[in-house]
């Protein structure tokens, strides 16, 4: 469903010129759970931002379900963000003034959907926050905030979830729990592309792409881990 053709991204000019991505070709399907690894500065985040239309490539094409999205105007990109693709960030990026439930409802506010508190509550229940829906982000732990962010990503029922270091701010145990949640979502049919620098976390995915200096240097596939029993 997703295809990148010869994508390059160049920042700055002259002496300050930095090549973040260098002619990358890549494809992913809805049943993929892909980990993107690489050292800092290897272009991981840029890669993810270009896939989701948060950033534009300097050259090359991005196709989503066979249609180019790299040359869409802002309003059309907004439509993609409202339906097909959702994000989970390392810093959670919740609005501090809203409760957990309101943060989950936020995408629905923007796409003009009917206020669907039932579904939002259901999703919060699913990510294990059924009892903390009225809490503000500042009252929640990092793991809990990330669960809210995941619930927010799920509320618009995306076919592809893009996660940028989703466990980067967590201890090993909490990170494992979040990855368990991702594995569950993958099993339910959401495609996931996840950037991480932690090889342990990458083992949850069913394939891994290694980036270095803006190029894909290695691809591996592994059997995705099953849900760990508690």
């Amino acid at each position, binding site marked *: 469903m997703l295809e990148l053709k010869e994508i390059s991204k160049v920042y700055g000019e002259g002496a300050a010129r930095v090549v973040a991505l260098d002619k990358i070709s890549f494809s992913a399907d809805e049943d993929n759970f892909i980990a993107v690894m690489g050292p800092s500065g290897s272009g991981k985040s*840029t890669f993810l931002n270009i896939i989701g239309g948060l*950033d534009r490539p300097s050259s090359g094409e991005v196709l989503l379900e066979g249609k180019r999205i790299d040359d869409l105007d802002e309003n059309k990109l907004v439509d993609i963000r409202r339906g097909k693709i959702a994000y989970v960030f390392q810093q959670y990026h919740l609005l501090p*003034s809203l409760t957990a439930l309101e943060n989950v409802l*936020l995408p629905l506010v923007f796409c003009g959907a009917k206020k669907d508190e039932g579904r939002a509550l259901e999703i919060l229940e699913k990510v294990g926050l059924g009892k903390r829906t009225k809490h503000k982000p500042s009252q929640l732990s990092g793991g809990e905030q990330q669960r809210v962010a995941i619930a927010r990503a799920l509320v618009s029922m995306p076919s592809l979830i893009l996660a940028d270091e989703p466990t980067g701010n967590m201890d090993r145990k909490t990170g494992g729990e979040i990855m368990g949640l991702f594995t569950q979502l993958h099993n339910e049919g959401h495609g996931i592309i996840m950037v991480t620098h932690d090889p342990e976390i990458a083992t949850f995915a069913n394939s891994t792409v290694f980036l270095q200096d803006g190029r894909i240097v290695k691809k591996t596939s592994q059997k995705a881990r099953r849900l760990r029993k508690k």
Partner: protein
Amino acid sequence: MKLYQVVLKDVFRRKRRVLYATLGVVIGTATVVGILTVASAGQARIYNQLEKYGPNLAVIPAINNLDMKLGDVRLGSLAVGDNYVSEDKLPIIRQIADGEIRKALKIEDQGNIATIAPNLYIDTKIRDTSVMVAGIDPEEELKIKTWWKVQEGKYLDQTDEALVGALAAQVLKLKIGDVIPLDGTSVTVAGILEETGSNDDYQVFVPIDTLQKASGREGLVSSVDIRALCNACPVEIIADGINKEIPGVRAVAVKQIAATEMGMMEKFSKFMLTLAGITLAVGLFGVVNTMMTSVNERIKDIGIMRAVGASRSQIVKAFIYEAIIIGIIGGILGYLVGTLLAYVAGPLVFEGTTVAYVPQYFALAIGLAIAVAVVATVYPAYRATQIKVADSFRSL
């Protein structure tokens, strides 16, 4: 949940910053409301003085030989000898006055508009003291001398009654019920006026018919006061019309003083409003500045909203909502502060003026404040839409 609710919650969280932005709006709005309130108090005082001048116009015989004053305004000299204006000229005077007012104000109604009060002055002796007795049309006279207050007894309503000026009553030692002989007939003192500070204090007023009969001057009047109850009434035109069409009389407009004062007031108001406009503009830049800071502070929040599906126009909308909230708060505070300012400054600007709050300015204040806040938000909101989502997270 709606977008405005998201904005409200965010505004509540950042209340200190939002109040700071509101301050700029408050200063501008308060200045405008304050100046307008003081100006309207000043205008009310001038209108009030205008009323005290009584007639807008006085019609007197063309030949004069006695000094006469009405209110505080000199009308030149007035004949009390054999020079009178015939009563049958009253309908013509009314026709000219009402006609010109209708023309100026585009009134269709054919009813009487101007107040036309004839006077007859007779110099006579009461209790061996020389007194001016004035014959008046009680009803019309009261419309002109709105400041008249009966201190004791009642106002004229019978033909054989007299109303006595405060000082005349003192000098002549007249009390309610005293009978005053008046040539052939006699009148009873029905009321004593409060002191007015004008010639009225020294006079005795009786119904004009009674005085005409007693003095044998039936159908004659000494002067006619005309008062048009509007400030845009064409007093000079009416005076010209009367002077041209009725021989033997002279019509004098007494509005000029008031008009001059009104003109000064208007100039003052304009000057002050210009100052208010400058204050408003300064306030506007203050709000722009605060909103820019607010955009910079919220780059991340804006990025989040964009990432979860907010369009550029929704980001603009969010900022406009915030501006409206700032405008409403700023408008309410601005009205209160401005009115307070007027209460303090008003008496300093116009001595002896009582400032009254003007409820209509509340809507004006709110409207103005919202307009300022929204205008000040346009550029910051535009800047907010230019934020690149990817950059907004990187900058942290």
